[in-house]
């Protein structure tokens, strides 16, 4: 090994605390980058593989009932590659071991296995026997959540009749990667499942021979989805079409697409912050190193080492810790990525979720970190290179102090000298002080933003499950019911309150923009369901006009006061105009609300109801559930409490992990910045502090001067960090919000307290580490050597 390399290694070892801090920050940034980009790639690749292997459709449509021969017409639409018709129906299930009723979505499959669109992946068990109509294949999450397996039985209420089903296989489909009950937003694995059943069995059960109610198709390459959708809508309007839609409106695909997008945001944002801090740390550490080694640089140059030799030598001080950070970060990232994929596997049901660790990601990470190292080292290395050797022989020119704020006559006498030293030091290099404050505040900000998601989801749960919805049970009818259904339900023992709504599919149009959506006709907004915005404010239902969620209003480009065209998709398919009465910022989804009577009037029928919200007497719940389990005409049952629990369980797992990661990374960041700041101050001021000791100051007093400066910087950084944290959270909320949900911007006092406490503890620990070195200061040695 060459002497210069040996010098590099030994001095790195001497600076190990500071260098490890740099390496740790780089490692955090790289691990986020590597894990997130691997996760993003893995999700994308798994989805693409799943979709192509199991022929996920491009366009979907639900109709009331259309004749099978009509498929020929669909096939003739230019650009349609393949078509598949199915019968799909939602039914109530009686699941062994589950008191409450569950909801099953029955999906028809060919009696004999042939390749179809949205095909089934049979995880275990087998395909159905065409001769046995009771055989079914059931979705994996539902079976697992209910501890069922092929060979077990299920009871379904199909068209008013109880039917015993035999589970023969456990399956998955690209259509239900995110498996959620229609109308719900979050998966409730125990109470909702997909059941694949023989087409013939469903035809006879639902009286659908020679007909279908669900259409999916794939498009030839380069065909306009919009054109095909328009033709389908024209063709099927008389068959009660709810409007065709592409993948972007298919709930499962939408969730995954949004998830992949969010991962992408994290790839850019977090590593960016960490690498910026690494740049800053390398900058201050190397500048200090070059300053203390002026004479060594001079002697190297005097001996004939070229500027490049010297430059490369000092660049090594940046490159080696960065390389260590990159290696550790890559390993950590690979491990974290695998862990994250396991969490995703809980949320999303892929046939196979393959974790792919890509060399490209590592290469990019290494490139990024070395670029950061280069940028961080640039200033110091340039200084080392450009230092004329003769000048380097001389000590650095003395720092010029000028009278500052403390030197006003009125203040001068009252302030102790130690405070003056602290303030002058900060005044002398205001830029360095500001950047240090900024870096510490970034750590505070990451803590705030990390816990913000907690607060936000908390608010989400509060609004959705307590303020907006106050019912216990939602009964969704399989067919629109006349208003008289209320009498039947009211007569059920244990029903305390009941409220109904109508859900009417329409196409909303405003100038050239349009959107397919269901309008919810509500009896009132003060009963079991309320209109509550993301901040918890309650809205009244205007007597006239429609209420749109802000996301929907944005898509259509409307504001309150505009007049919106409504094209009813069912019944008499009337075209109407309605006033936009209000826009409400809801947390979930896209919705439109209207007074039930007004909706009935606009639809031009006598008025129908699609679902009931019930508040029930918990002591009679058991009996009521039994009734619901055999009640005809019910397509789905949702339990608010169960939904909430399953949501919390799901979120808790993923959020605890991500918050833990963020919190630890923020701690690393804070420690690295505070510790390095103090170490550099110590190195810059060792002579001065020793002189003070020689003059009679105690260890405590000089500690106060050194650590007081750090404490002051940290204290300044906390409010700045809070502000940046809030801004960062707002940015995150904006970036992570989608059509599916908007994250409310809320901060609990606990969040700030937590960030404050973490930073204070981290600062104390790093202060203590530096204090130990301060005690070990060799007074004589320090005074003897030349600075």
């Amino acid at each position, binding site marked *: 090994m*060459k*002497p*210069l390399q*040996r*010098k590099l290694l*030994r*001095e790195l070892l*001497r600076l190990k605390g500071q260098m490890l801090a740099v390496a740790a920050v780089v490692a955090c940034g790289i691990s986020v980058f590597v894990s997130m980009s691997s996760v993003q790639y893995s999700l994308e690749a798994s989805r693409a593989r799943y979709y192509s292997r199991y022929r996920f459709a491009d366009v979907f449509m639900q109709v009331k009932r259309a004749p099978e021969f009509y498929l020929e017409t669909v096939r003739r639409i230019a650009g349609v590659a393949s078509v598949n018709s199915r019968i799909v129906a939602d039914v109530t299930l009686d699941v062994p071991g589950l008191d409450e009723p569950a909801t099953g979505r029955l999906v028809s499959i060919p009696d004999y296995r042939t390749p179809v669109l949205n095909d089934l992946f049979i995880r275990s068990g087998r395909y159905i026997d065409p001769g046995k109509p009771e055989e079914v294949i059931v979705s994996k999450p539902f079976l697992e959540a209910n501890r069922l397996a092929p060979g077990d039985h299920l009871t379904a209420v199909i068209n008013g009749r109880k039917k015993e089903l035999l589970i023969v296989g456990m399956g998955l489909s690209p259509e239900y990667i995110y498996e959620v009950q229609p109308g719900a937003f979050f998966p409730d694995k125990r109470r909702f499942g997909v059941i694949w059943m023989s087409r013939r069995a469903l035809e006879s059960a639902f009286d659908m021979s020679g007909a279908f109610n669900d259409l999916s198709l794939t498009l030839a390459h380069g065909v306009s989805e919009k054109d095909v959708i328009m033709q389908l809508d024209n063709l099927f309007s008389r068959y009660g079409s709810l409007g065709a839609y592409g993948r972007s409106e298919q709930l499962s695909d939408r969730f995954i697409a949004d998830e992949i997008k969010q991962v992408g945001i994290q790839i850019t944002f977090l590593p960016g912050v960490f690498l910026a801090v690494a740049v800053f740390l390398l900058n201050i550490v190397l500048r200090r190193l070059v300053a203390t080694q002026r*004479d*060594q640089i*001079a*002697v*190297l*140059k*005097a*001996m*004939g*080492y*070229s*500027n490049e*030799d010297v430059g490369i030598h000092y660049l090594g001080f940046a490159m080696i810790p960065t390389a260590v950070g990159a290696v550790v970060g890559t390993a950590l990232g690979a491990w974290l990525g695998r862990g994250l994929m396991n969490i995703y596997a809980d949320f999303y049901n892929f046939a196979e979720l393959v974790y792919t660790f890509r060399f490209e990601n590592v290469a990019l990470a290494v490139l990024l970190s070395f670029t950061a190292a280069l940028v961080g080292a640039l200033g110091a290395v340039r200084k080392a290179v450009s230092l*004329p*050797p*003769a*000048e380097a*022989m001389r000590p650095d*020119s*003395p720092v*010029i102090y000028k009278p500052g704020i403390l030197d006003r006559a009125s203040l001068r006498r009252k302030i102790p000298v130690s405070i003056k030293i602290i303030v002058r030091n900060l005044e002398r290099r205001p830029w360095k002080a500001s950047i240090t404050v900024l870096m510490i505040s970034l750590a505070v900000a990451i803590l705030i933003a990390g816990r913000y998601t907690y607060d936000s989801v908390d608010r989400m749960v509060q609004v959705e499950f307590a303020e907006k919805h106050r019912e216990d049970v939602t009964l969704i009818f399989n067919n629109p019911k006349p208003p008289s259904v209320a009498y039947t339900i009211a007569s059920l023992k244990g029903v305390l309150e009941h409220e109904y709504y109508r859900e009417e599919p329409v196409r909303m149009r405003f100038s050239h923009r349009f959107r397919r959506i269901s309008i919810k006709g509500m009896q009132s907004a003060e009963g079991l369901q309320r209109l509550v915005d993301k901040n918890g404010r309650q809205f009244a239902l205007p007597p006239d006009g429609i209420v749109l969620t802000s996301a929907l209003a944005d898509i259509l480009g409307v504001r309150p006061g505009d007049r919106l065209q409504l094209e009813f998709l069912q019944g008499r398919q009337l075209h109407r105009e309605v006033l936009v009465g209000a826009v409400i910022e809801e947390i979930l989804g896209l919705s439109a609300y209207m007074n039930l009577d007004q909706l009935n009037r606009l639809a031009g029928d006598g008025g129908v109801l699609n679902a009931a919200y019930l508040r029930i007497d918990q002591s009679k719940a058991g009996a009521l559930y039994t009734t619901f389990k055999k009640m005809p005409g019910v397509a789905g049952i949702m339990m608010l409490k169960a939904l909430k629990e399953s949501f919390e369980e799901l979120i808790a797992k993923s959020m605890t992990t991500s918050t833990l990661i963020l919190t630890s990374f923020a701690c690393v960041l804070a420690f690295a910045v505070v510790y390095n700041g103090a170490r550099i101050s110590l190195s810059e001021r060792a002579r001065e502090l020793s002189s003070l000791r020689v003059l009679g100051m105690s260890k405590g007093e000089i500690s106060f001067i050194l650590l007081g400066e750090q404490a002051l910087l940290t204290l300044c950084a906390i409010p700045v960090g809070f502000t940046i944290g809030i801004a960062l959270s707002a940015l995150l909320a904006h970036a992570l919000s989608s059509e599916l949900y908007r994250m409310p911007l809320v901060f609990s006092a606990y969040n700030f307290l937590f960030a404050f406490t973490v930073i204070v503890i981290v600062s104390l620990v790093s202060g203590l580490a530096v204090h130990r070195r301060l005690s070990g200061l060799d007074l004589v040695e320090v005074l003897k050597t*030349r600075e």
Partner: protein
Amino acid sequence: MLGNPLDNGHESVLKISDLSKSYLMGEVRVEALKHVSLDFYSGELAVLLGASGSGKSTLINIIGGLDTPSSGSLFFHGREITAATETELTAYRRRSIGFVFQFYNLISSLSALENVQLVTEIAEDPMPPQDALRLVGLEHRLNHFPAQLSGGEQQRVAIARAVAKRPELLLCDEPTGALDFQTGKLVLDVIEKVNRELGTTTLIITHNASIAGMADRVVRLSSGEISEDRRNLTRLSPSELVW
């Protein structure tokens, strides 16, 4: 060159003509050298005397290619050093110049041997580093770090480091400045030995007039100008010096 009383019959190694240097120190302009002209000859041991601030360090830095003059020229074996590029200066220092500093300027993270290797690594025809350390009497301290060596030992390592490359010119800037009398003499002994045994042209700058006795030639600088340039009739051995 014939006829020059200081010629001594040797070839001129270094030719300095009309050299001036001024620089800014903080907010003050310092006129370090004013129109200095001098020649140094092969094998010569010269002492540059001067009080602090007389410009002697500036002169030696310019001779060593560490600094550039504000005006004037400097020729080394007929090659103009003052017109050299940065790369040429680096090569000049690497090949031809050995430096010894007042504060030794050893790399504290490298051992004595490694400090010498620092030079032998990049020199063209160096002596083995062990030989260089033997020359200064430190063959038994090879693996000691600067912090484990006394001041005199550190300076001897620095001398070993400077001569290991077999330079044509050895420049010593206050080599005894940080040392006590006895140790200082020991170090001068080593410098004298190098000059005598290797024939290296040697320039010692010092404010200590007693050292002048060991030189072939004494040049006195004051306020950036040459105030005296004389030749000693006999060279004293460093052990005979007294201060």
